[in-house]
């Protein structure tokens, strides 16, 4: 109890610093290892060689500069969707709708990427990114406003809005925004212009740096600004927030808007940096992975980065694992679920590590959002 009480104590020495870092990462680290061990057992049971499989997984994700670049490229949208989910958690909101917000962001940035012509690259990229982000933000505002004004649980409305987003984007990609050049019959938008493409520096996608910068901004906003204070207060105690004069409804909406904004950037970056257009089915699951990542990263912006890289690596390496070791890619889902389980069920690990508390905050959501 006492450790938890120390909120943001200043750390005096380097060894203290290491201790506190260890304190925070011990549980996630142990969770990842445990998940890998159980995954290995499953592999053995199904007749595969876990060492070979994991070696291939690592080769495919970190083995070469190219693989590493691919891992970072995979991690980039995951950082954004992870931030989106984590930020909402801070306000006591469960944004399962990051997926839908991300889809709209991807589509709108693609539209901005091919419809707007004659802009210099930097401006065009910025504009297209913003367009996608704002689309995500607006789509996030809907469940936020419903929650704030009618009390409708954001868990359910965001699930429903995900389906709505799929329908909208499919309709647009197969209708008004469809690529009709060169006799194309595939449902997809035209390719974005070169001026809207986010380049890579060597193998490292520029989007990844943006993700790092945005993580820092989110961290700063949450813990160093009054807006962040309001968000966290509303999350921990809406009643105290109201008492102190904060606008609870406004903050709920604002949080969902920022959350949608972040998810929207995630989709935009995919479009502008990787896919180059909007095509249905190209952004599947990125938003949902955000939930896993936010939780693995203990809902902290800086925890999210390694968590996203980890999951990104599993995605990047899955094909190599199948190629080299013949192991079906679904095993990475199982490992992900196990990681999530162990990192949340920290009681189990705490018993094993004999530490009293898990570091970071215990994650409790508002259930259906009623407090």
């Amino acid at each position: 109890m006492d450790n938890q009480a120390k909120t943001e104590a200043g750390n005096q020495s380097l060894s203290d610093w290491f201790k506190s870092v260890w304190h925070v990462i011990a549980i996630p680290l142990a969770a990842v290892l445990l998940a890998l061990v159980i995954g290995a057992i499953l592999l053995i049971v199904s007749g595969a060689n876990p060492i070979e499989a994991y070696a291939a997984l690592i080769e495919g994700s970190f083995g070469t500069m190219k693989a590493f670049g691919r891992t970072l490229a995979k991690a980039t949208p995951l950082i954004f969707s992870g931030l989106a989910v984590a930020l909402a958690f801070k306000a006591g909101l469960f944004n399962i709708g990051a997926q839908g917000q991300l889809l709209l962001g991807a589509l709108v940035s693609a539209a901005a990427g091919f419809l707007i012509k004659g802009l210099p690259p930097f401006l065009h990229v910025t504009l297209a990114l913003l367009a996608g982000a704002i689309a995500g933000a607006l789509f996030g505002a809907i469940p936020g406003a419903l929650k704030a004004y009618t009390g409708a649980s954001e868990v359910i409305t965001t699930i429903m809005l995900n389906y709505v987003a799929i329908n909208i984007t499919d309709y647009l990609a197969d209708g008004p925004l469809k690529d009709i050049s060169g006799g194309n019959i595939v449902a997809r938008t035209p390719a974005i212009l070169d001026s809207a493409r986010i380049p890579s520096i060597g193998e490292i996608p520029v989007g990844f740096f943006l993700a790092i910068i945005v993580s820092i901004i989110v961290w700063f906003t949450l813990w160093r600004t009054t807006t962040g204070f309001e968000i966290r207060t509303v999350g921990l105690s809406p009643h105290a927030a109201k008492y102190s004069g904060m606008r609870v409804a406004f903050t709920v909406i604002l949080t969902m808007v920022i959350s949608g904004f972040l998810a929207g950037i995630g989709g935009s970056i995919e479009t502008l940096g990787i896919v180059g257009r909007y095509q249905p089915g190209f952004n599947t699951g990125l938003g949902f992975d955000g939930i896993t990542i936010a939780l693995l990263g203990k809902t902290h912006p800086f925890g999210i980065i390694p968590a996203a890289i980890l999951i990104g690596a599993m995605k990047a390496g899955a094909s190599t694992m199948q190629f080299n070791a013949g192991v079906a890619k679904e095993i990475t889902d199982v490992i992900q679920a196990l990681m999530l389980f162990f990192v949340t069920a920290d009681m189990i690990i705490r018993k094993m590590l004999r530490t009293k508390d898990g570091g970071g905050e215990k994650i409790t959501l508002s259930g259906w959002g009623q407090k």
Partner: protein
Amino acid sequence: MTEEKLALEIRHVTKRFPGVLANDDVSFELRKGEIHALLGENGAGKSTLMNVVYGLYAPDEGEFLINNKQVEINGPHDAINYGIGMVHQHFMLVPVFSVTENMILGSEVTKGTSLDLKRARREILEISEAYGLEVDPDAIVEDIPVGVQQRVEILKALYRKANILVLDEPTAVLTPQEAEDLFQVMRQLTEKGVSIIFITHKLKEILKVADRVTVMRRGKVVGHTSPSETDQQGLATMMVGRDVLLEVEKAPAKPAEIVLEISNLTIKDERGVSAVKDISFEVRSGEILGIAGVQGNGQTELAEAITGLRGVDAGTTTLLGETIPFEKPRYLVEHGLGHVPEDRHKHGLVLPYSLADNMVLCTYYQKPFAGKTLIRNEQAVLKNAEGLMTRFDVRAPGIDVAASTLSGGNQQKVIVGREFSRGIKVLVANQPTRGLDVGSIEYIHKEIIKMRDEGVGVLVFSAELDEILSLSDRIAVMFRGEIVTIVDAKDATREKLGLWMAGSHPDTV
């Protein structure tokens, strides 16, 4: 002594919570048919001991004898089987259930596989008649007054044929009259062979009904006595371990201009029932207006409306000459109103936050804590906290610990410090010392009077008559959403207030 018929004997109970030794080798005897008072400061371990007896908490050590036979109590189920009934400090009723459903829960009567609500209803009416505890078996619990809820709690125990009854602070929410009725019932029960453990902070009540008294301090039993051997001061001294001042001293008030004026306020509660009916009064600078009343008579709604937490259905409130918008706490923060809320855990504090953050909860956005840039000045926040810690004598390991780790008294000091230090002109304090020990009460009362003497207009809501009497310059009494009367403190007595709080009209007294 060994021949003596004991209803319950507790031997050497020790109960630890993380970081707290709540019961330290406690032994306790309850004779057949007696009312045995258990007395002690907040956190002395009374409730814990009773929860252990009732099987809710597993003791680390200790044993129990019932009717001189050793028993194992591994859960409430066992306790109920041994005839132990308990009315908890916080009521254990399911608000959305009917009285009947609450009554039978856990000891259901069935017909085939179905609940036999008809039979249960009949049985409840029988018992309620036998003990003169009137209830409507079909009423939904959240709709009935607390006094009746308590009756339901006692009936619950009787329905389970309890012959050892634990009452944990049963009078905290009752009018003096209702308390009187309860004592009547308690005596009646002892006549029928029921033995009662009675926990209360009200020394007068102990002297009135108890046969014997056991006093606890910091988890230990520190002594036994009986009403014939002692008086209030004696009990208080035994409890705290030093002489206590039971009432603070204050100079006569110098009321000046009106700072807060309430006109024709009407408020409906969540279910559309009028909780506050057309209330008007005013508070002047330099005076303390105390609002007395039993919990649930509209004080909560009134206080919440005045402090911006709740909307109203009619009426206006004027603060320093300006009509205030409702449901805008920020407006009030910025216009000189301070608020010590009724529920410090729900409204007053963000429990996981550090003390420093809690101390800027209302002013975090103002200079020097932040400016137009919205960026927090951490240095200023910390400095503010350090200042308040010393000035308001908050006892905590540091300003960076979470508010949840503080004792109730220190939590209250954090709130008081935050509100009193930001240059307010009007103070609304709702149950400012609820659940606090005498030392903290003394301190907070002094601070409130200091505010008054500095020219702040103070409005105090309290269910504690002693608090109202010792703080107020004028006293208003609320009953069923209306102000029965407003009198000068000089003209009020405990007895009169008690009657008014129970609904008697002042003219008839």
